[in-house]
C-alpha cells in the first residue's frame, strides 16, 4: 500500500507539472526587457514610493495621536484602516522587489555554464524565506496594526532606504548607456 501511495504521489506531481506547463504563458523571463523593467520598477520605488521621509510620514505616530484626540470614533477607525492598508501595501512593494531581484538572478544565472546547483538551491531557499518573512510581517501588521510596535516605524523607514540602495547595487551593472540603449525597444514593445 505504501509503495502504491508513493507512485500515486509522483503521478500527482507529474500531472500538476504538465497542467502548469499547458497553461503557461510563453513569455521569456530574464530578457533585456525584463531586466530594464526591473530597473525601472526599482527607480519608481526609490523616487516615488519609498523615500524614507514618505515612509516616516505614512507611519507617523503623531498623526494617529492627533486624530485620536480630535476626531470622533468613526474617523479614528477609518484612519486606522487606511494606515494599516498603507503599511501592508508597503510590505507588498518590498516583496515585489525581492521577487524582482530573484527573477533577475535566475534570468542571468541560467546562461552560466559554471552554475552551481547547490548554491542555486541555497539561493532559492533564501528567496523563499525572505518572501515568507515579508508575508509574516504583513500578517503582523494586519493583526496588530501599524502602531502596535512603536519602534518599528523607524526601523521600517531605515530598512526602506537600505533595501532600495542594496537592490540598486544588484542592478548596477546595467549602466546608464546600456539602459538607454535598451529602453527604446522596451518602450516600443509596450506600445
Amino acid at each position, binding site marked *: 500500500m505504501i*509503495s502504491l501511495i508513493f*507512485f500515486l504521489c509522483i503521478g500527482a506531481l*507529474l500531472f500538476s507539472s504538465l497542467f502548469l506547463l499547458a497553461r503557461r504563458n510563453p*513569455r*521569456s523571463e530574464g530578457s533585456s526587457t525584463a531586466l530594464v523593467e526591473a530597473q525601472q520598477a526599482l527607480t519608481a520605488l526609490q523616487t516615488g514610493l519609498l523615500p524614507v521621509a514618505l515612509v516616516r510620514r505614512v507611519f507617523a505616530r503623531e498623526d494617529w495621536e492627533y486624530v485620536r484626540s480630535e476626531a470622533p470614533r468613526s474617523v479614528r477607525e477609518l484612519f486606522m484602516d487606511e494606515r494599516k492598508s498603507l503599511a501592508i501595501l508597503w510590505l507588498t512593494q518590498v516583496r515585489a522587489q525581492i521577487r524582482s531581484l530573484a527573477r533577475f538572478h535566475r534570468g542571468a544565472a541560467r*546562461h552560466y*555554464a559554471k552554475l552551481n546547483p547547490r548554491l542555486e538551491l541555497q539561493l532559492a531557499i533564501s528567496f523563499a524565506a525572505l518572501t515568507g518573512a515579508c508575508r509574516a510581517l504583513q500578517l503582523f501588521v494586519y493583526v496588530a496594526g501599524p502602531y502596535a510596535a512603536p519602534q518599528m516605524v523607524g526601523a521600517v523607514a531605515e*530598512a526602506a532606504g*537600505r533595501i532600495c540602495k542594496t537592490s540598486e547595487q544588484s542592478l548596477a551593472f546595467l549602466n546608464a548607456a546600456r539602459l538607454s540603449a535598451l529602453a527604446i525597444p522596451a518602450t516600443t514593445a509596450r506600445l
Partner: protein
Amino acid sequence: MSRWLIPAAGEALQLLLLVRGARAHLIGRYRFFYFYLGSVVLISIIMTAVFAMAPGSPLYQRWYWPLQFLTLVTGYGVLLEIMNHVLRPYQGAERFAKFSGVAAFGAIFCFALIAPRIMPHWSPGTVIEFERDLRCVQALFICGLLGVVFYYGIPIGKNMKGMVVGYGLYILTSLMSLAVRAYAGTGFDRVWDIAQPLSFDVSLLIWLVALWSYCPNPVPDHTIHLEEDYEALVARTKSVMGAIRAHIGKAARA
C-alpha cells in the same frame, strides 16, 4: 470492438505522424523522437502480424515484454531530445537539470535498495514492477526538467511543449496503471488493456497537433552580455539578500 479500434486508431495516427514529420522536415530536427516513434511503429506492426497470424501462439506473450522494454529505452531518447532542445541555449539551467536528473535517478535507486528492507512485502521482482520503476524514473526526470524550466522562466515552443505534454501524459497513465496493477493484481487487467493504448492514442493526437509544422523554440535574448562570472553573480545576490534579510529582521524585532 474497443480492443481493435483503439490500437488501429493508434497505428493510423503513428503513420500519419511519421508522414507529416517527413513532409514538414521534422525528422532530421527531432531525430531521437522520430527514432522512438519509428521503433514503436515497427514493433506494433510485428506484434499485430504475430497476433493476427497465430492468435494462440506463445510467441506473442514471449515477445511482448522485451519489446515493451525496448520502446521504454528508446523513450529515454525522447527525454534527451526534449532536454537538448529546451535547455541547449541555457548552459546553467541545463547543468541544473542534469543534476536534478541524476538526483531523481539516485532517489529511485535508493528507494529500490531501501524499500525491501523497510517493507518486507515490497519487491521489484516482477516485470510489471520493474517497468513501473523505470516509468517512475522517467516521471521524476520530467518533473525535474519542468521544475528547472519553471524556476528559470525558460520559454518553450509549440513543438517541444507538445512533445513534453504528450509523452508526460503517456508516462503518467503508464505509471498509474502499472502501480495499480502491481497492487491490485490481474483483476485490473481489463481496465489496463484499454487505458494503456487509449492514453497512447491521446499522446499521439497531441503530438500530431503540436508537430504539424516546425515551430522553433524561442531563442533567448542576448542583448545583454554580462561581464562577470557566475561566482560574482552569486556573491552579489547573496550579499544583497543578506542585507535585505537583516533589515527585515530588524524591522520585525523593533
